[in-house]
């Protein structure tokens, strides 16, 4: 868990950072490289889940008509996703999806946010396993919802056959199939994963780069400082990306569900 801190303290930063920097040694068993059951990454996932459960259960243990401050905060998060994503995208029928969308949004937001929290400083979502799992849920969900709503035949017809002249359909149907049923889960998962991966990589490059220049030549110290200032600036950028990606993932899921529910293409 403190591998990176040790590296920094020892002044022997490996530069440039590599993909291996994303795969920290296991916590239990300590230091193992091929054990993934209990690593910093999975620990953070559990922490995120625990924090969210405790927060929501604690704030909503005794809901009141006139909300307390904490209750108001929890309601604002739910209200934001419910009104600004679910109802906005899907319409009134979207209310029944709001609980899942809110859970999804909170989970992604918090796990993303670990990327810039001191001592955590890496997001579980920079491992594609987690975005992929969430994307698969979204994928299964919109197909399931579509089939439930329209029946299998009509859903497939709605999804694959756009309102276009018949002679262009042979071209459009494969494209629709490709974009709707093949690309969607990958684009969802990869978008989130790549953003978090790149964000972490950027912060690593500028942080480790500062140390690398400092150890290479003492005269490069000002540049090192500049590099660390850039790290701070990029941390703010990363915060923007964190919020944006959580929002985008939820909105796209809502949009897929809306497409599956829509009567016409």
């Amino acid at each position, binding site marked *: 868990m403190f591998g990176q801190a040790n590296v920094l303290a020892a002044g022997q930063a490996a530069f440039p950072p590599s993909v291996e920097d994303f795969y920290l040694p296991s916590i239990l068993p300590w230091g193992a490289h091929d054990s993934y059951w209990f690593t910093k990454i999975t620990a953070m996932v559990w922490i995120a889940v625990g924090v969210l459960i405790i927060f929501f259960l604690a704030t*909503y243990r005794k809901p009141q008509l006139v*909300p307390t401050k904490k209750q108001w905060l*929890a*309601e604002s998060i739910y209200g934001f996703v419910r009104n600004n994503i679910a109802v906005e995208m899907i319409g009134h029928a979207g209310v029944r999806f709001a609980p899942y969308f*809110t859970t999804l949004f909170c989970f992604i937001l918090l796990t993303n946010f670990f990327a810039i929290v001191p001592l955590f400083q890496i997001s579980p979502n920079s*491992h594609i396993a987690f975005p992929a799992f969430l994307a698969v849920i979204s994928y299964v969900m919109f197909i399931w919802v579509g089939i439930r709503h329209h029946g299998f035949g009509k859903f497939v017809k709605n999804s694959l056959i756009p309102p276009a002249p018949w002679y262009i359909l042979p071209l459009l149907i494969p494209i629709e199939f490709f974009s709707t049923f093949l690309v969607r889960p990958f684009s969802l998962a990869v978008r989130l994963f790549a953003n978090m991966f790149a964000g972490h990589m950027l912060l690593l490059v500028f942080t480790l780069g500062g140390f690398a220049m400092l150890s290479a030549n003492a005269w490069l110290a000002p540049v090192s400082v500049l590099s660390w200032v850039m790290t701070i600036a990029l941390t703010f950028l990363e915060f923007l990306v964190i919020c944006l990606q959580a929002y985008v993932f939820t909105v796209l899921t809502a949009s897929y569900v809306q497409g599956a529910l829509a009567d016409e293409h």
Partner: protein
Amino acid sequence: MYLLAAEGGESTHNPIIPIWQEIVVGGIAFVLLCIVLMKFVFPRMEQTFQARVDAIEGGIKRAEAAQAEANQLLEQYRAQLAEARTDAAKIRDDARADAEGIRQDILAKAREESDRIIAAGKEQLAAERATIVRELRTEVGTIAVDLASKIVGESLADEARRKGTVDRFLSDLESTGAR
């Protein structure tokens, strides 16, 4: 150990290939989160929202009902007030009419009384006058007879004659007085 592996350039990890253990762990964790939040938290939030909407709408409804009732009461009071005013006016008119009637009665009675008193006075006067006249007549007769007897120096013996003389004299007096 970790550093050695990294520096050795031994790229054992492909970032685009998910680690199945992480999928399992993440899946369990996320499903747990979903179950707890979607079962115990967000439905209650919806309930609270609904309760809040009900409270607000119920309040509006109650206020509307109260307003309607107040309006109805106001109308009722206005009607009653108008009725009371009409009644009061009627009572006043009646009272005025009664007062007028009583005044007229009293006036009539007073007039009648005064007439009666005047009539009684007149009657009494007439009676007194008649008495006086009668007494005077007797007295004048006596005086005249006395005077005449003194003048003549003799008493008239014959009562009937004397009475006839006096009556004749008096009739003459009256006839001259009437003329």
